[in-house]
């Protein structure tokens, strides 16, 4: 082992400073790409910040996008704690949304308080079902879950295109969409809810699902750190061999964690379909499953971190679409580049800045220790 007494960083550096430095590095490289394209990074940054936080409308949209990313970020994080890299949140959200959407189509005439539990259950069950096969194959056959979940994204996409175009499409219509949900399957908007208690807020797609997502984040925290099952998940993720000795079955954890992960991702439809689109249409997850990977990695797989990272990526999504209006040479693909860079710096290259930081902090603590012995 190394000779340096403690190579551990203080908690606030590990959870606060390091992610900020990694994010800053990702943003600097993104700025270089914008410059390469021939636009000013500063102007782009200003446009994006204004577009994401500059008005009530901007904030509403930012939090609306963030809601999607909380669902998928939590999904990726739960799997990650079990030592599984779930790339399939995109497909699970797509199929989960089908469940929610079917409830909206078939039960929309019910009152909202009756539709909501059905929609939550359907989204969770459909999402979990889509995660089940890759999970089972990983647990029983050792099939690489990264590849199988990616394949299930492609299969989900083909299946949904078939269902929407050939089966669920509103008759007598060209565009691939279902009919609109009835009123009972519509999430109350934030402006309506705030209006009731006398707070004016601009009408945006931000809706009740945002609070559901916040509640889920708390539940995930309780699950992971305050229950036996959560403990089993974390043990199996950190050390499968130790888990076996402790009487935990890694195979069962794999399947259980992936079911939970798929269920969380599957709830995206509550926000996207019942909150905003009010119908099933093609490709409604819009890459949120992949953003969830970046969100989970940046948030260090902790619910609080995920909330913060989700708001950041919500701001990127909203600011990015504003940016593409004002800078025609920059389109929304730029946001995907930034996602990739965030995953790179916060995930793969996290050790690059950790080592210098460790050197600095260990130098500091050694100085302090010497000060004590001298006295």
């Amino acid at each position: 082992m190394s000779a340096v007494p403690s190579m551990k960083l203080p908690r606030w550096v590990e959870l606060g400073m390091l992610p900020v430095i990694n994010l800053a590095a990702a943003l600097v490289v993104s700025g270089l790409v914008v410059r390469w394209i021939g636009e000013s990074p500063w102007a782009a940054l200003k446009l994006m910040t204004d577009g994401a936080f500059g008005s009530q409308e901007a904030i509403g949209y930012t939090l609306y996008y963030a809601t999607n990313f909380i669902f998928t970020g939590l999904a990726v994080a739960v799997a990650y704690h079990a030592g599984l890299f779930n790339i399939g949140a995109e497909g699970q959200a797509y199929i989960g949304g089908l469940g929610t959407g079917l409830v909206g189509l078939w039960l929309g005439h019910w009152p909202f308080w009756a539709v909501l539990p059905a929609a939550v259950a359907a989204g969770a069950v459909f999402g979990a079902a889509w995660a089940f096969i890759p999970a089972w194959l990983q647990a029983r056959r050792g099939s690489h879950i990264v590849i199988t979940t990616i394949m299930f994204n492609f299969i989900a996409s083909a299946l949904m295109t078939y269902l929407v175009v050939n089966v669920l499409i509103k008759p007598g219509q060209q565009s691939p969409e279902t009919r609109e949900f009835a009123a009972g399957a519509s999430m109350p908007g934030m402006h309506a809810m705030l209006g009731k208690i006398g707070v004016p807020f601009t009408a945006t797609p931000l809706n009740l699902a945002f609070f559901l997502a916040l509640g889920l984040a708390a539940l995930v925290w309780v699950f992971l750190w305050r229950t036996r099952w959560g403990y089993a998940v974390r043990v199996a993720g950190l050390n499968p061999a130790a888990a076996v000795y402790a009487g935990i079955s890694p195979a069962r954890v794999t399947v259980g964690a992936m079911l939970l992960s798929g269920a969380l991702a599957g709830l995206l439809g509550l926000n996207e379909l019942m909150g905003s689109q009010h119908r099933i249409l093609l490709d409604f997850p819009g890459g949120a499953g992949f953003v969830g990977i970046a969100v989970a990695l940046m948030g260090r797989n902790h619910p609080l971190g995920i909330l913060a990272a989700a708001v950041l990526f919500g701001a990127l999504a909203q600011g990015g679409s504003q940016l593409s209006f004002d800078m025609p040479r920059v389109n929304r693909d730029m946001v995907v580049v930034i996602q990739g860079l965030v995953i790179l710096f916060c995930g793969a290259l996290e050790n690059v800045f950790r080592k210098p930081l460790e050197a600095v902090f260990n130098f500091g603590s050694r100085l302090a220790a010497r000060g004590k012995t001298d006295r």
Partner: protein
Amino acid sequence: MESYTIIVLLLAATLRVATPLVLAALAGLFSERSGVIALGIEGMMLGAAFAAAAVSATSGSAWLGLGAGVAVATALALLIAFACVTHRGNQVVAAMAVNIMVAGLGPALALAWFNLGGQTPQLDGAGQRFGAVLWPWAQAAREAPFPGLLYAELLSGHNLIVYLAVALVPFSAWVLYRTRFGLRLRAVGENPHAVDTAGISVTRLRYEAVLISGVLCGVAGTYLSTAASAGFVRDMTAGKGYLALAAMIFGKWKPWPTFGACLLFAFTDALATRLQGVTLPLEGVVPVQLILALPYVLTVLLLAGFVGQAVAPAAIGVPYSKEK
């Protein structure tokens, strides 16, 4: 068309579809045999496809495009090696980061440079694409069905990269099993400590392996945008890197079985393309989405190991540190 002609054309199509898979699968093989997970081949291919199409469109030379494709894929490989080997980062995360970044970067740069909505211009000028190489007397041989048609369609008439991919299979097998480098490469994927004890640099070997996979992905990506089609479009690899990886796992990390698995994938794909719009006796018209999903379903089935357990290199995915 008589069935013989159909079969010959189907086999020729199989070979063309298999080419990028074979190159990518060999890329994965070198990387994974050294102990570095090769999920990044998807992004390296996509990056090369964009670079090759962009350079070929502006310079008018497919060969310069190939150079650019290989350069970009190698640079991405270097990035992955830097993250995974030098800094011992999570290999799956590094690969996915590159894949997602490239998926955005290609269309973003294409929009800024060519203003065609995230595509590169159509490559239709002379020399902008890798064209078919006609073997001697191929035209004349076509008249005689057997073996003339076989010669004209299956052996002759492909582009250079197709022949290169096929030739690389025995070459890779030779490198892996008959050279000192190959022995060390296989050893470093199984037991890096032993390699290190023998005084050979683990870091250097893994860098070399990942760079080789970068070069191969560069060729594969170039094939996609300048030979198989005429230009770069968004997400044009469509998971081919992952399919290739599945083929490699199915081929148990060995060149010849991997080649066979790639051909199987490609044959399914070619067959499915033929079935498009065809009315089957009982089922009616096959939905196009089912045909599109077929390679992905096949991948899952193969990975499910219905054909025997695959054993990965022992040290795969584990960053090497001398201290332990």
